[in-house]
């Protein structure tokens, strides 16, 4: 069976483009035809930029004809609507930014433009990336392409669904507590959160600045490595981006894991209501890696059970401060009919933000308020140190840590929407890596009995993305789950 252009990977299309067998214009048109066919059911995008994309494709084709092809030249990508794109509205899934048109590009967008990549549109997301299901978007939820009654995960659910439903070739997401990895698992694709500081956050609309990272969401591990190559690096405009050269991640695409020690943390299996089918799938994948020469070793991350509580204090605390800027003055929505400035602030924010964003602003404001700071924010920041130390200790005895990405397969739309705490607990396996700044990837590790995709997470030590890629690539090359596509019937 031959694949349609819109189903191919970055590296497959790059080969075709290089040979002149296909043009970027043809690929881009094929992607939009696919969007026309499935987008009404999936709703992966907030904004589509068809005309601009076809112009970018034509420009890419011209470059290719002049022999100036780069690995991402002419490749149609989806961009999470949290990343600023000059001249193209960037809503963050919120009413308050419904009409916001950034005057500048995020650094990652600038870097991709230098590659002559093509931008298909801005993908749907939980409002301000606050959610695990993409249901809190002001623009309505995204459906999981594997089962339209289920959530695609979140917050980068639009990017994940777009890649899974073949509505783009690859996408960018952002990950504050699992927002790349968990939707990647829910949609059966690859999603990678780099180390904190690896990718510039300039132009990423801030949610929790000490946790946010941008990363690739792709069809396979090779594409993730390729995309990571071109978004990584130091940026003087983000003082938290690290000043160390990014390696060529595609050089880590080795087929073997001989000698790699994989740590399996007991806390991720024994506790917290992990679905038995998820557990079984992860263990089956671990056995594959073992047969390829890795050794498995049980490790302990003793403070795992405190991670969700610490995160849901720290992230909302940072968010309550970051979101103070939305006051109806400089940009975004402003209510009408206010009588004074205070009124304008309060009515604007109350009308402009959705319930989950308000809940987090409230939690964060409370955790930082006089009399409660030490008990909540102070305590959570200390627990963060303990969680970091857990990982430091664990990486003394292993190279990589392997866990499930999410405790369950994708849940049903509406299932957790009115139970915020249950929703928060779906991030239980992804949050610790954010708190410790560590890189992590989610990749397919099979399907449950209902045919829903399941994800496996590999966490690496700080700035050891290459080891993660090596482990992930080996598993992928020795399995065929990533070839299975949703039928979208």
């Amino acid at each position, binding site marked *: 069976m031959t694949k349609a252009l819109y189903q191919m990977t970055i590296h497959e299309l790059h080969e075709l483009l290089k040979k002149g067998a296909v043009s970027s214009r043809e690929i881009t048109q094929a992607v939009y035809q696919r969007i026309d066919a499935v987008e009404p059911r999936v709703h992966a995008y907030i904004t589509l930029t068809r005309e601009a994309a076809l112009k970018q494709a034509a420009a890419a084709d011209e470059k290719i004809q002049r022999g100036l092809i780069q690995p991402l030249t002419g490749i149609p990508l989806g961009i999470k609507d949290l990343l600023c794109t000059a001249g193209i509205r960037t809503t963050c899934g919120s009413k308050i930014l419904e009409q*916001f*048109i950034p*005057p*500048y590009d995020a650094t990652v967008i600038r870097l991709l433009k230098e590659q002559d990549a093509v931008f298909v549109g801005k993908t749907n997301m939980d409002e301000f990336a606050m959610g695990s299901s993409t249901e809190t978007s002001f623009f309505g939820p995204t459906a999981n392409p594997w089962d339209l009654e289920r959530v695609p995960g979140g917050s980068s659910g639009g990017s994940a669904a777009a890649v899974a439903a073949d509505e783009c070739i690859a996408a960018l997401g952002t990950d504050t507590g699992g927002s790349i990895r968990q939707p990647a698992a829910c949609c059966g694709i690859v999603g990678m959160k780099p*180390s*904190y*500081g690896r990718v510039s956050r300039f132009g990423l609309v801030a949610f929790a600045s*000490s*946790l946010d990272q941008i990363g690739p969401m792709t069809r396979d591990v090779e594409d993730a490595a390729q995309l990571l190559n071109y978004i990584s690096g130091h940026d003087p405009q983000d*003082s*938290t981006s*690290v000043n160390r050269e990014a390696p060529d991640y595609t050089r880590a695409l080795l087929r073997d894991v001989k000698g790699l020690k994989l740590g399996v943390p007991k806390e991720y299996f024994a506790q917290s209501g992990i679905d038995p089918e998820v557990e079984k799938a992860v263990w089956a994948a671990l056995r594959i890696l073992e047969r390829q020469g890795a050794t498995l070793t049980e490790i302990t991350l003793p403070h795992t*059970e*405190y991670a969700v*509580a610490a995160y*849901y*204090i720290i992230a909302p605390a940072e968010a*309550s401060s970051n979101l*103070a800027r939305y*006051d*109806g*003055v*400089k*940009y*975004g*929505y*402003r209510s009408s009919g206010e*009588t*004074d*400035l*205070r*009124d*304008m602030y*309060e*009515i604007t*924010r*109350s009308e402009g*933000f959705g319930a989950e964003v*308000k809940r987090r*602003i*409230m*939690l964060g*404001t*409370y955790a930082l308020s006089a009399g409660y700071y030490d*008990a*909540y924010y102070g*305590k*959570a*920041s*200390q*627990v*963060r*140190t*303990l969680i*970091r130390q857990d990982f430091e200790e664990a990486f003394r005895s292993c190279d990589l840590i392997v866990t499930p990405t999410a405790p369950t397969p994708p849940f049903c739309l509406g299932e957790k929407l009115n139970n*915020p*705490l249950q929703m928060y607990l779906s991030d239980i396996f992804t949050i610790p890596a*954010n*708190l410790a*700044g560590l890189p992590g990837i989610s990749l397919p590790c099979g399907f449950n009995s209902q045919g829903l995709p399941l994800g496996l997470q590999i966490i690496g030590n700080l700035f050891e993305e290459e080891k993660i890629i090596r482990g992930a690539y080996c598993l992928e090359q020795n399995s065929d789950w990533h070839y299975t596509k949703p039928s979208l019937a």
Partner: protein
Amino acid sequence: MKITKHDVEHVAELARLRFTEGELEVFTGQMNTILSYFDTLQQLDTAGVEAATHAVNRSNAFRDDQIRPSLSGEEALKNAPAHERSCFKVPRIIEG
């Protein structure tokens, strides 16, 4: 109960948010559930543990203070809900 409806109202004021009576009821309940869950942290003895404010230990990133191109006034005002001449326009603050 960790917090009352009155506390929630106070926090809302600090956060420049306003809720209806019905929303206040719902938020108070939900915040109590979540704050009770946060109590698990109190089981941990963290005496003497340093607080982590960042994922990765960093020191300040300094640079020379150089004049570089930046947004023009016109561009900076483009997204403003209301502006006049080169200023953001807001409701009157000072009477008279």
